[in-house]
C-alpha cells in the first residue's frame, strides 16, 4: 500500500438475529429449510396482511446497543424504505430511518497490541429480504421468500477504521459480541452477518476525508479484507494519475478480486422513507432498558484484560481464548474451582482441546468434557501423579466419555513410576544402548541428557517420572 495515503473505512454490518420467530409474523426464523416453506401471507406481503412487531427483536437490538455503549432511544418508530426488487415482496422494507433504536456508541478493539476506539453511529432494526436463485436448467429467476422478515440489526460504524486490519479486527469483535450476547449465529458463510464497506483514502496528514465509495454485501471476513485493500489501491491509483474519486456504489466480486461499478451518485435511489402507518411509535420502558443493560455478560475485551491481569496469560492468548464464548466460559468455570494453575488450564484448552475441536469441527460443549474431569486431570499432572504425556491420553478419553481421570489412570496403569530400582534399570539400559549420546556428553554436548531422558520416557511408556529420570541419567553419566 502506498504510504503517502491513509485508508479510511466505515462498516455497515447487517446481523441476522436468532429469534424464535420472524420480526413481523409467527413464521419460524430458521436457516437452511426447503425453499418457500418458512413463509406466510404476512412475510410474503400478500394483500391486506399487516405486521406485528416481535418484541424479542427490540430486546436483542437493545442488548447490542448496551454492548456497544450506545444510548437507547426509548421512543422510536419504524419506517418504510420503498424500492422495487423481486426479493422484496411488499416493495418496501420495514426499517428505521431518522430515529434508530440505539445510537452514539463505541467499541474498543485490539489491533495487534494497540487498543482502538471505534465510534458506533447507530444500530437499527429492520427486516431481511428474500433470496433470488438462478437454478441450473432454468432460464428465469426463482425467488425464495424464507428469509423475508428475518430480523436484522444494522450496525453502522463511524469512519474510524484505518485500513483492512482494523476492519477485520472490528468485524471479529462484532461477531464475537453477537455470539456472546446469544443474539445471532454470526456466521458470515451462511450470510447471517453481511457488511457494506465504505472506503476512502486521503494523503497522510490531511484532515478532510476523501470521497468514499460503498461496496455492498461483502460476505466474509476475508472478502472484507480483500475488498478494502483492492478498493484503497484502486482509489490511490486514480488519485496518483490525477483523477477524481466519484461517490458511487460498487459491487465486490470476490472471485475475481475486483470491485465493479453498480451505480453512480446520480442514479442513487430515492427510497421515499416515511413512518410505517401499520406499526406506529413504540416505547420501551426505562426499567426494561436497565434490565437489559444488567443482563449484558462480560464481553471479550474485558475478559481479555482480566485474563492478562489476573491469570498472567499472554495478551494474544487471552484474546484468542476470550473471543470464543463457549471456551472462555468453560475456562472461567475451570479456573473458579481453584484447583489448578490458570495458565496450565489455558494451555490445555488452547492446545490439545482446541486441536481436537478444530479437527472435529465441533465446540467444547459438544464434547463429553466436564469442568471437574479436566481440572482433576490437570491436578494429577500438577501433583506428579501422571506425566504430561499420560495427561494427553487421559484427555482423549474424557473428551469422549464422562469418566474420572483418577479411575482412568488406575485402570490403564498411567501412573508415573517413581520406584528407583525400576527406573535405574531403564537408565542403565538406555545408556548402554546409546553410545553415541554418551560420547556427545563427554564432548560437552549437554543436550544429550535431554535426548537420553526422552529415550527413558519412551522406554517407560510415558510413565517414568521425568524429574527423577533426569537426575538418574546425569548421575550415571557423571560416574562414567
Amino acid at each position, binding site marked *: 500500500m502506498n504510504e503517502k495515503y491513509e485508508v479510511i473505512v466505515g462498516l455497515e454490518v447487517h446481523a441476522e438475529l436468532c429469534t424464535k420467530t420472524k420480526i413481523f409474523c409467527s413464521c419460524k426464523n430458521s436457516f437452511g429449510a426447503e425453499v418457500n416453506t418458512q413463509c406466510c401471507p404476512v412475510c410474503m406481503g400478500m394483500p*391486506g396482511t399487516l405486521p406485528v412487531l416481535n418484541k424479542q427483536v427490540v430486546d436483542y437490538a437493545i442488548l447490542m446497543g448496551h454492548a456497544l455503549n450506545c444510548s437507547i432511544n426509548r421512543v422510536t418508530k419504524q419506517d418504510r424504505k420503498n424500492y422495487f426488487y423481486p426479493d422484496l415482496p411488499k416493495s418496501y422494507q420495514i426499517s428505521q430511518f431518522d430515529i434508530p433504536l440505539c445510537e452514539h456508541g463505541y467499541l474498543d478493539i485490539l489491533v495487534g497490541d494497540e487498543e482502538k476506539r471505534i465510534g458506533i453511529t447507530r444500530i437499527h432494526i429492520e427486516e431481511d429480504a428474500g433470496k433470488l436463485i438462478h437454478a441450473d436448467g432454468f432460464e428465469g429467476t426463482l425467488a425464495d421468500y424464507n428469509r423475508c422478515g428475518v430480523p436484522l440489526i444494522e450496525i453502522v460504524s463511524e469512519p474510524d477504521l484505518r485500513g483492512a486490519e482494523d476492519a477485520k479486527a472490528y468485524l471479529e469483535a462484532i461477531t464475537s459480541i453477537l455470539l456472546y450476547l446469544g443474539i445471532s449465529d454470526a456466521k458470515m458463510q451462511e450470510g447471517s452477518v453481511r457488511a457494506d464497506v465504505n472506503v476512502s483514502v486521503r494523503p497522510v496528514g490531511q484532515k478532510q476525508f476523501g470521497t468514499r465509495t460503498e461496496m455492498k454485501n461483502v460476505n466474509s471476513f476475508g472478502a472484507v479484507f480483500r475488498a478494502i485493500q483492492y478498493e484503497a489501491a484502486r482509489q490511490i491509483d486514480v488519485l496518483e494519475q490525477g483523477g477524481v474519486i466519484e461517490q458511487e456504489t460498487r459491487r465486490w466480486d470476490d472471485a475475481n478480486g475486483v470491485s465493479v461499478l453498480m451505480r453512480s451518485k446520480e442514479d442513487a435511489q430515492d427510497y421515499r422513507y416515511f413512518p410505517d402507518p401499520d406499526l406506529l411509535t413504540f416505547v420501551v420502558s426505562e426499567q426494561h432498558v436497565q434490565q437489559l443493560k444488567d443482563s449484558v455478560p462480560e464481553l471479550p475485551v474485558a475478559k481479555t484484560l482480566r485474563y492478562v491481569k489476573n491469570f498472567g496469560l499472554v495478551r494474544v492468548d487471552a484474546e484468542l481464548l476470550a473471543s470464543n464464548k463457549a471456551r472462555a466460559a468453560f475456562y472461567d468455570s475451570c479456573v473458579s474451582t481453584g484447583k489448578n494453575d490458570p495458565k496450565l488450564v489455558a494451555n490445555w484448552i488452547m492446545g490439545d482441546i482446541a486441536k481436537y475441536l478444530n479437527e472435529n469441527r465441533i465446540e467444547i460443549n459438544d464434547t463429553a468434557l466436564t469442568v471437574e474431569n479436566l481440572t482433576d486431570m490437570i491436578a494429577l499432572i500438577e501433583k506428579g501423579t501422571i506425566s504430561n504425556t499420560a495427561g494427553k491420553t487421559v484427555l482423549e478419553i474424557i473428551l469422549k466419555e464422562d469418566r474420572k481421570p483418577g479411575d482412568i489412570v488406575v485402570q490403564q496403569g498411567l501412573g508415573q513410576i517413581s520406584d528407583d530400582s525400576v527406573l535405574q534399570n531403564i537408565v542403565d539400559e538406555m545408556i548402554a544402548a546409546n553410545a553415541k549420546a554418551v560420547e556427545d556428553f563427554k564432548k560437552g554436548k549437554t543436550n544429550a541428557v535431554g535426548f537420553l531422558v526422552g529415550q527413558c520416557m519412551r522406554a517407560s511408556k510415558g510413565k517414568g517420572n521425568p524429574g527423577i529420570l533426569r537426575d538418574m541419567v546425569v548421575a550415571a553419566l557423571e560416574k562414567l
Partner: protein
Amino acid sequence: MDICKLSATEMAACLRSHELSATEIAKASLERIQKVEGTVDAFLTVTEDEALAAAAKVDAQIAAGEQLAPLAGIPVGIKDNICTKGVRTTCASRMLENFVPPYDATVIEKLKAQGAVLTGKTNMDEFAMGSSCENSYFKPTRNPWDITRVPGGSSGGSAAAVAACEVPLSLGSDTGGSVRCPASFCGVVGLKPTYGAVSRYGLVAFASSLDQIGPFGRTVDDVSLLFDAISGEDKTHDATSKAGNFAARIREVKGLRIGLPKEYFGEGISEEVRAAVLKAVEEYRAMGAEIIEVSLPSTPYALSAYYIIASAEASSNLGRYDGVKYGFCGDRGGSLTDMYETTRSEGFGDEVQRRIMLGTYVLSSGYYDAYYKRAKLLQQNIAKEFEEAFTKCDFMITPVNPTTAFKLGENVNDPVAMYMADVCTINVNIAGLPGLSIPCGLGKGNLPIGLQMIGPKWSEGVLLGAAKCYETAVGGFAVKEM
C-alpha cells in the same frame, strides 16, 4: 312475508322463533340477488354454494337446540377488498382479477365464527379509490333509487346491495368517506368506526392510517349488530387495533349538546341537502337536545392534507403489485423494468395510477417536508380542533355529501369535482373519529339525503343511540321498492 325486506334483527328473531330457517333466508337472499343484479350490479362474485352450506350449518345448530350467535344465519355482503379465504378478492381491479386469498380477514373470521351467511363480494371503486363506484375495472354499480345514477363510493356495491334488499347487512371500508358517501346516496345506514376499533387485517390496504372497515344496514339496530360482531382489538394481527373504551349505547338525547360546525354548512352544500339536515337537527331539538354552533377552522385545508397522506400511503401500499408473486403480470419477455412498467400500467386503472404518482411525488426526497410532513402537521391540528369542539358538544351533525347522487359519467372526467364529494367526510378519517351516516329524507327525484354524525373517539354508542332516537321519531327509514 317478503323475507328480503326483513331487517337482520327481524331475521334473527324469525330464526329463533322457527318461523324461518337459515336456508330459507339464504335462498331468499340469493333469489333476490338473481332478480335485481341485472339492474343494480352490486356484486362481483356471488358465493351461492358457500352461503347455502353456512345456512345449513346454522339450521343444524337450531335443530340441535344450540344457542345461536347474534349473526347466525344472516346474509352479509362483503366489499371485494376484504380478503375471503378461497373466494376471489379483486379490489375491482384487473391487477387482482384472479387473486384468491389463502386467508380470511379478521372480520371474516369473526363473521364465520358467528355463523353469518356470506353471500358474495361487492363491487367498489378500484382499490377503494373513488366516490362513485365507476372506477371498478369490471362494471359500474347503479343506485337502486335511480339506476341512471351512481351509488356513491367507494363501497358502492355494499351500499346498493343493502338498499336493494339483496342482503340486510354488508361490510364496506372507509378511508375518506367510502362507507358514509354510498350510505347517504343509497339511503341506508353506514358507520365508519373509530380508527383502531375494527381490525384491518385482511382489508387490502389503500391508506393504512385512515382505512377502517365499517357496516351497512337499513336500520340503526342492524348496523349496531354488525358493528358489535366485527369490533375489538386484534393483538396478533393488527398493531393499530385497540380495545377502545366504548361509550354505552344511549337511549335518549335529552340534555345532549349537538354541535353544528359552521364550516360544513357553507358554500358548496346544496340547498336541499342543507335543508334536510337542518330539519333533522330540529327533530333533535324537539327531543330535548341542545343545539350549538361550533367551528373547525382547518376544514378547508383537510382535502389537500387528505390527498397527500392517502396518496403517499397508497403509493407504498400498492407497490407490491409488481407482477412477481400474484395477480396480473405484464410483459415477462423483456427486462425486469419492462415487467414492472407493463404490469402496473396495464393492471391499474387511471385513478389508481394518478394517486400512485401523486403519492410517489409527495414522498420524494426534497418534497417530503413541503408536502407529507406539512400534511401530517395539519392532521394533528385537525384532530386537536375536533378535541376542542368536543369539549363543547357531545357529537356533531353535518351533511354527508354536498349533493344527492349524481349521474353515472357526470364527474368521470373531472377528478377534482369527484374529490369534492368527500369534503364533509374526510376530516373524520384524518382525525380517526367515528362517523355515522343515516338517511334524513328524500330530495329532488326521490333521491336519498344523508346526515352525518361525528363523535369523539369510541363514542359509537352515543352516535348509534342518538341515530336510533331519530329513526324512531321519524318512523323508520324509507326502503326503495324494486
